[in-house]
């Protein structure tokens, strides 16, 4: 590992950390515009985080030591993910991420968050946790299968190698497998990050909460860290979708020009994806909880078909 | 010649559609079927004695000719019988003149489609004609607009359409298998062309194609386990139509299977025979089981059709000169006997106003002529000598034994015995005893008995001796299956 590689990794992580709240802000703003209102500023999430960092923490009487550790673990897992996944550089040092490890890090994050929901001792937290697990039960195999399909095409499970493979292929790499798998991952993105139609992120009715329910008991700095971790998760999902499936523009070496192009292309893709998420959220309504498995099975079947199509076609 | 054969039913249908009075419709219908039969005889004679008639899209070889004869004869008898059957329904108020017109138009269009199935050369056009028969007969099945009739016709439409779609997939695969053999530019599904290169067809494709075709067209032919539409459709339709469906339509579907069987035999010997034997035995077995538990007279006869179609498939599956001859003979024998039975059942059902066999008693006292013909027909269809069906079944069993298929022959004989028992029990149960109160005595009309007498005479004659003309005809058909008698 050379110094430049370490610097690039640090730059990637900082980029992700800085951009994540902005993406959530962009989604909020886009949704507001689609509803013909002004909406909050795109920098609002930063202000919210700053406000929360300065507030005191109040914990429930039933909370154990785990309650205080969980936010650190979650944020740490997301930073780890930012190191593993190639953000704007797919060179040999761009990421050290094997895709299966990536899925497991996401699983760690989800597990810790679910425990955090139970820690508070309130029924709403437990409800949110159980719903989150129900959704994840189908999302995880979908993610695995989708990434298996691209791994099958490129012959390796290392995320940067897959990126390099598709970047080298260029437009010739477009195949039905890619489309099916990315459709499956887009639906999983909506599911994992608690977007409509799976969960309304702006709801204040505890009975309808999935993600927010698990965060109900957190306050102050811990809440800031959990929120930040959620923003980073959204960003990382979008980065995986962009860079593994459509990695055009990603830097393959460490030249300054290449890196700038890489940063520009990932920024553009993130912007595009945020706006698409906002559009989907505005167009669809939140689905009933027991109809969610239907939609999730659709995404699972899509990923299954993605793997099949690799062998059929 | 062949064009004339097809134009006559078309004209009859048109004229029936335009006719005003009942009488005109009946006369036109009967006259039309007679003319069709008269036109058919010379064509068939030519096909049997000389080389196959091959002109344009038409192809009439001995196999087609045999089926054409069956179609036109049965259609003639059915149109004669329909006269008094429908008159009875008119009196009861179940149908009006518009329905009558509708019935006869559809009847002749149906006959036209069935004739089309057997005289075209291209397998694709044959498929289109088979689909046409399904669509037209769906209306005939749903003729009485009661709940059960509609249920039966919907089931019939859906199941047969699915079957036919699968059969089309089979035909496409067959076409694909012929592409290499026929070479570039020979863009054809003509059976005669495929027959010439049959041994060069791609074996893997032919196997898959045959499976789809036997399942698909077998659905229309009434082979189990795809036969589920058959009892419903044949029992809910008007009785003359049930006769036409059982005796002729099932044969047409079997004709399609046989055409492909001949091709498959040349391309992949042994595969198609084993499949036919399997489906044949399965049909006979399943039909036997349901025969024993049937209570409705027409359903009973419908299951008997499934059984006999199974026997025919079995005969062709076993192969060899005896079995093939037996199967071909059985095609003719079954059509005649089943029609006779359905006509008798029609008489009984209209007199007794019920189809439950337990409620029908004492036919011997109320309608002696029908009763005697029913007993004769029942014995015939159960397979007793000296009737035609016995000869067919005997030949098939002999063929099985000659080919060394002892297990098949044994199962076959056992099932025949059970069916004989069931059939005699039911028929004698209906004929003997005292009729219930309120059932008027007396036959329902001479025009009904005439066709029945003709049929009875035919099956006795065929059971006792084989006219040499028929023998030669069957021999020339059997040659197509590459067996020498």
């Amino acid at each position, binding site marked *: 590992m050379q110094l430049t590689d370490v610097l690039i990794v640090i730059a990637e992580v900082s980029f992700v950390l800085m951009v994540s709240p902005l993406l959530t802000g962009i989604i909020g703003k886009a949704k507001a515009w689609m509803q013909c209102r002004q909406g909050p500023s795109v920098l609002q999430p930063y202000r919210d985080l700053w406000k929360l960092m300065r507030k005191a923490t109040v914990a429930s009487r039933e909370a154990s030591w785990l309650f205080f550790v969980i936010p650190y673990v979650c944020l740490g897992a997301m930073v780890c993910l930012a190191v593993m996944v190639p953000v704007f550089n797919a060179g040999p040092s761009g990421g050290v991420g094997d895709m299966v490890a990536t899925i497991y890090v996401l699983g760690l994050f989800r597990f810790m968050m679910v425990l955090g929901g139970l820690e508070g001792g309130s029924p709403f937290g437990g409800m949110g946790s159980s719903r989150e697990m129900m959704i994840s039960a189908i999302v995880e195999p979908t993610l695995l299968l989708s990434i298996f399909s691209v791994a099958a095409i490129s012959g390796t499970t290392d995320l940067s190698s897959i990126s390099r493979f598709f970047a080298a292929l260029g437009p010739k790499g477009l195949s039905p497998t890619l489309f099916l798998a990315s459709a499956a991952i887009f639906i999983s993105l909506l599911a994992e990050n608690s977007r409509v139609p799976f969960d309304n992120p702006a709801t204040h009715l505890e009975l309808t909460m999935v993600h927010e329910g698990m965060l109900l008991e957190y306050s102050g700095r811990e809440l800031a860290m959990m929120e930040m971790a959620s923003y980073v998760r959204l960003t990382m999902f979008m980065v995986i979708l962009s860079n593994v499936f459509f990695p055009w523009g990603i830097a393959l070496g460490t030249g300054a020009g290449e890196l700038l192009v890489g940063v520009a292309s990932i920024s553009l893709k993130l912007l595009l994806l945020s706006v698409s998420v906002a559009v989907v959220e505005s167009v669809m309504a939140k689905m009933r909880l027991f109809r969610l498995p239907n939609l999730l099975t659709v995404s699972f079947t899509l990923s299954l078909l993605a793997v099949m199509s690799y062998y059929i076609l | 010649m062949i064009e004339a054969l097809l134009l006559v039913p078309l004209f009859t249908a048109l004229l029936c559609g335009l006719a005003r009075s009942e009488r005109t419709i009946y006369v036109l219908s009967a006259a039309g079927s007679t003319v069709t039969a008269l036109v058919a005889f010379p064509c068939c004679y030519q096909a049997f004695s000389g080389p196959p008639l091959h002109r344009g899209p038409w192809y009439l070889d001995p196999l087609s000719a045999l089926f054409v004869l069956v179609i036109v004869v049965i259609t003639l008898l059915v149109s004669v019988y329909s006269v008094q059957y429908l008159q009875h329904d008119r009196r009861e108020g179940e149908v009006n003149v518009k329905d009558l017109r509708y019935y006869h138009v559809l009847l002749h269009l149906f006959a036209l489609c069935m004739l089309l199935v057997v005289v075209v050369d291209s397998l694709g056009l044959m498929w289109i004609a088979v689909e046409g028969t399904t669509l037209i007969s769906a209306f005939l099945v749903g003729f009485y607009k009661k709940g059960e009739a509609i249920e039966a016709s919907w089931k019939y439409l859906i199941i047969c359409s699915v079957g036919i*779609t699968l059969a089309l997939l089979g035909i496409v695969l067959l076409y694909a298998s012929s592409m290499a053999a026929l070479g570039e530019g020979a863009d054809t599904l003509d059976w005669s062309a495929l027959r010439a290169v049959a041994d060069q067809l791609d074996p893997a494709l032919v196997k898959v194609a045959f499976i789809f075709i036997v399942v698909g067209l077998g659905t229309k032919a009434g082979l189990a386990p795809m036969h589920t539409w058959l009892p419903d459709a044949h029992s809910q339709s008007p009785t003359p139509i049930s006769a036409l469906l059982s005796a002729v339509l099932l044969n047409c579907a079997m004709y399609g299977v046989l055409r492909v069987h001949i091709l498959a035999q040349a391309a992949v010997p042994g595969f198609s025979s084993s499949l036919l034997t399997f489906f044949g035995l399965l049909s006979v077995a399943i039909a036997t089981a349901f025969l024993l538990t049937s209570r409705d007279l027409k359903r009973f006869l419908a299951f008997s059709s499934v059984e006999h179609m199974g026997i025919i498939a079995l005969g062709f599956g076993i192969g060899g000169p005896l079995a093939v001859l037996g199967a071909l003979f059985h095609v003719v024998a079954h059509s005649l006997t089943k029609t006779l039975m359905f006509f008798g059942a029609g008489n009984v059902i209209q007199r007794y106003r019920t189809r439950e066999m337990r409620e029908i008693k004492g036919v011997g006292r109320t309608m002696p002529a029908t009763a005697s013909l029913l007993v004769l027909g029942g014995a015939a269809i159960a397979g007793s000598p000296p009737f035609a069906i016995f000869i067919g079944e005997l030949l098939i069993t002999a063929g099985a034994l000659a080919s060394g298929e002892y297990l098949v022959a044994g199962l076959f004989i056992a099932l025949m015995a059970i069916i004989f028992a069931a059939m005699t029990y039911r028929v004698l149960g209906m004929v003997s005893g005292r009729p219930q109160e309120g059932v008027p005595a007396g036959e329902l009309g001479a025009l009904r008995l005439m066709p029945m007498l003709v049929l009875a005479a035919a099956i006795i004659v065929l059971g006792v001796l084989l006219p040499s003309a028929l023998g030669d005809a069957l021999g020339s058909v059997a040659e197509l299956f590459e067996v020498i008698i």
Partner: protein
Amino acid sequence: MGQLVRSFAFQSLMLAAIAAVLAHYTGSEHIYVVAGLTLVVKGLVIPRFLIYSMDRLKVRREIEPLVGIPASLLISGGLVIVAYYITEPLISSAETVTRNCLAVSLAVVLIGLFMMISRRKAMTQMVGLLMMENGLFLGIISTTYGMPLIVEIGIFFDVLMAVLIMGIFAYRINQTFETLDTTFMRRLRG
């Protein structure tokens, strides 16, 4: 229900597009004719007729099918795998450009068949049959670059007739049973 018909129209559209591309690739004109027919008959005429029937029959939603939705989706995925397994020996020996379409076409046929078995409303069964025909058509144009033209035209005509006739029967079912739920038609047994 409207979504069902729209999905079918979309599928027919894609089919016509495939046929057109194939016609361009092989340069044979009769496939263009066939592509055009697919577009008009299956993409426009039949969906319009289905929507017209649905309005007349006041059909709204599909009732909960006999097999639940997630299970149906998984079974459909399984059927794709089965279709691939069946056609694999055939595909490896064929030499046409579209040889892989055979697996897809068989999958569509099987999924259409599954739809006919597992759904209860008469109209959905009709659409299932039409899907089977679509799959079949894909099989036709991909393995054999289309059959003799007269056969193709005959098949289209037949499909159209079948749809019209089934529409008439669906109307009769609705008149007699006051519903299009086919599980109500159970009087004939044994």
